[in-house]
């Protein structure tokens, strides 16, 4: 029987099959941990006198509550003592259990979902979990990757397995050619707007079609990252030459690379494989997208009129955002711009933002911050001179971390401020109590910074020479 990519990877990891009474016991190849969702799990381990079963399959970093500024004395000022304690506890726990940790001294430290792929720790055909819902990012490599809660972090630490029932599968086809100025972020926002924030609940998504085949790994990661915003725990893209080129030569890339690639190629869904649901979008219909409400499903083309509220919840969302149905969203006054997060903080994202900000200035009272996803991204961006483009434009160039995506390290907006953000969640208060978030691509965020108002990034597309050529 023809099988899907998801089925094939799932089957390779079943330790004890699922029955009516029990979920399957699924083996986990890679467990990523960070400071926020692991301390209570290590406490449970300690209480029960258990060891970490496979420290060699566990990787740690610090990213969520870490400062993104270094002060004049070279210190990193934490937002609270408790945040600092959380980070030191992670470092102590991982040292005690012999877990490879990318802390302050590592060239690889970064947002956990940026770091995994950069190390080549994320590879096709794997099962990957992390106590963080955007673990779906790693599905871009053809891995089954999903977020788990702290109790399950404890399960994986102790047993390297989780208990889970097999989800249903949904294929999302986007065929055709994207128009100029339409980015992977726009594609995923269009998908979420189409199927809704609960549309993927209970499903594993597979992104199929020419748009994803032609997309870079950075772009595929942006798409898979936001699968969770449609309610799906994971989203995948079949591994292909683009995947293999990305992984070749990375720290954890397999030694017999050719054999590995051959195996990975066989993971692609078979012709005629059946999905529980299929959704079709046309690439040509997708325009640059922005959100206008308080969940990622309330997304619209930037050049359209704000849709009418469908129910009371949407009405409240429009009120919260201080926007009106039937009016243009373009032209909305912007207070802050955040370019970063595991959705859009990789090289392709920073290059795109720099292309638009090159030679321009951030409008007077707008605060724009650019936060690279990892130390590697930071280093590469600086080698290409991107930081100079941002700083010359008047944007702040920060240290890697989650920053304003979750606003728990002190980087946040003031109540009522409008933030154009490349992150993944526009929930009320996500970027600070009362802050209003508009999710957008790096291009749209950069355009907002230099225009001071929400602006269709396509008006800047001609201006955009590759900044790396300019320098």
């Amino acid at each position, binding site marked *: 029987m023809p099988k899907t990519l998801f089925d094939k990877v799932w089957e390779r990891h079943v330790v004890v099959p699922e029955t009516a009474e029990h979920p399957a016991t699924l083996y986990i190849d890679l467990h990523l941990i960070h400071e926020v969702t692991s301390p209570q799990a290590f406490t449970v381990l300690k209480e029960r006198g258990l060891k970490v079963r496979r420290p060699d399959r566990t990787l740690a970093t610090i990213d969520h509550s870490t400062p993104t500024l270094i002060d004049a004395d070279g210190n990193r000022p934490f937002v609270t003592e408790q945040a600092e304690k959380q980070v030191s506890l992670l470092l102590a726990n991982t040292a005690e259990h012999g877990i490879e940790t990318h802390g302050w001294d590592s060239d690889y430290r970064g947002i956990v979902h940026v770091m995994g792929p950069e190390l080549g720790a994320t590879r096709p055909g794997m099962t990957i979990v992390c106590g963080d819902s955007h673990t779906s990012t790693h599905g871009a490599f053809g891995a089954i990757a999903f977020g788990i809660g702290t109790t399950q972090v404890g399960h994986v630490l102790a047993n390297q397995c989780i208990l889970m029932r097999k989800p249903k599968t949904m294929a999302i086809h986007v065929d055709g050619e994207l128009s100029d100025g339409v980015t992977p972020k726009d594609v995923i926002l269009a998908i979420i707007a189409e199927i809704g924030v609960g549309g993927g609940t209970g499903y594993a998504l597979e992104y199929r079609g020419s748009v994803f085949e032609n997309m870079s790994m950075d772009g595929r990661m942006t798409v898979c990252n936001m699968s969770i915003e449609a309610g799906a725990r994971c989203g995948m893209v079949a591994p292909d030459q683009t995947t293999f080129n990305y992984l070749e030569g990375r720290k954890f890339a397999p030694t017999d690379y050719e054999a590995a690639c051959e195996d990975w190629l066989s993971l692609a869904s078979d012709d005629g494989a059946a999905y529980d649901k299929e959704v079709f979008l046309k690439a040509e219909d997708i325009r640059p997208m922005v959100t206008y409400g308080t969940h990622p499903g309330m997304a619209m083309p930037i050049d359209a009129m704000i849709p009418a509220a469908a129910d009371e919840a949407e009405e409240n969302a429009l009120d919260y955002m201080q926007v009106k149905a039937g009016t243009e969203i373009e032209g909305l006054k912007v207070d802050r711009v955040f370019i970063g997060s595991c959705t859009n903080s990789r090289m392709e994202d920073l290059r795109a933002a720099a292309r638009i900000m090159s030679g321009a200035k951030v409008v007077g009272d707008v605060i724009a911050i650019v936060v690279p996803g990892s130390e590697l991204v930071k280093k590469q961006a600086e080698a290409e001179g991107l930081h100079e483009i941002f700083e010359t434009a008047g944007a702040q160039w920060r240290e890697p971390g989650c920053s304003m995506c979750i606003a*728990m390290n002190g980087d946040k907006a003031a109540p009522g401020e409008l933030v154009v953000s490349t992150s993944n969640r526009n929930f009320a208060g996500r970027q600070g109590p009362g802050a209003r978030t508009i999710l957008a691509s790096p291009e749209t965020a950069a355009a907002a910074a230099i225009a001071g108002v929400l602006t269709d990034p396509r008006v800047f597309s001609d201006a955009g020479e590759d900044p790396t050529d300019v320098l």
Partner: protein
Amino acid sequence: MSFDPIKNITSKTLVLPAANIDTDQIIPARFLTVTTRDGLGKHAFNDWRYDDDGTPNDHLLNQVNSPDYQILVGGHNFGCGSSREHAPWALTDYGFRAVISSEIADIFKGNSLKNGLLPVVIEKSAHQWLLDHPGEEVTIDLEKCEVRLPKNGGTYSFEIDAFSRHCLMEGVDEMGYLGTQNDAIAEFETNHG
């Protein structure tokens, strides 16, 4: 994590009718720097309940005596967003033992089941009845997998994974269960490198 077994819950309902209540509403991220799981109840729905300076406002959650309201009824698509287990921790610490909605997000549902918070997805008409009748005494019978509404509101069945139900009713802990599969896990590791 150990918790008291749940067989059935009879309690008044506390109704928060908004749709798409996400985990950032249930427990805002700035309270996630804790390293234990206790005491988060006072921050459950923090930004709804307190003014900017931290003074409690007149939100329903500040008015009721929480042990009297063990059942939270949320609007459609409850618990979407992050995988933070701090969300069910905050709700159980507040005093809730069950959440009812017409749709509940996957990860939140899984996290709740592991922490003695019973997530109940119920059909639209029953959900609407609950939204329309806040504070009524409702019974969730886990043995029979049904919700019984008072005042001729009717009886509705709900579905719950058999294993999760078993764990909740017996207070069984999944880590202990996984521990019994040690041999199978070791064999898998031998065969798969």
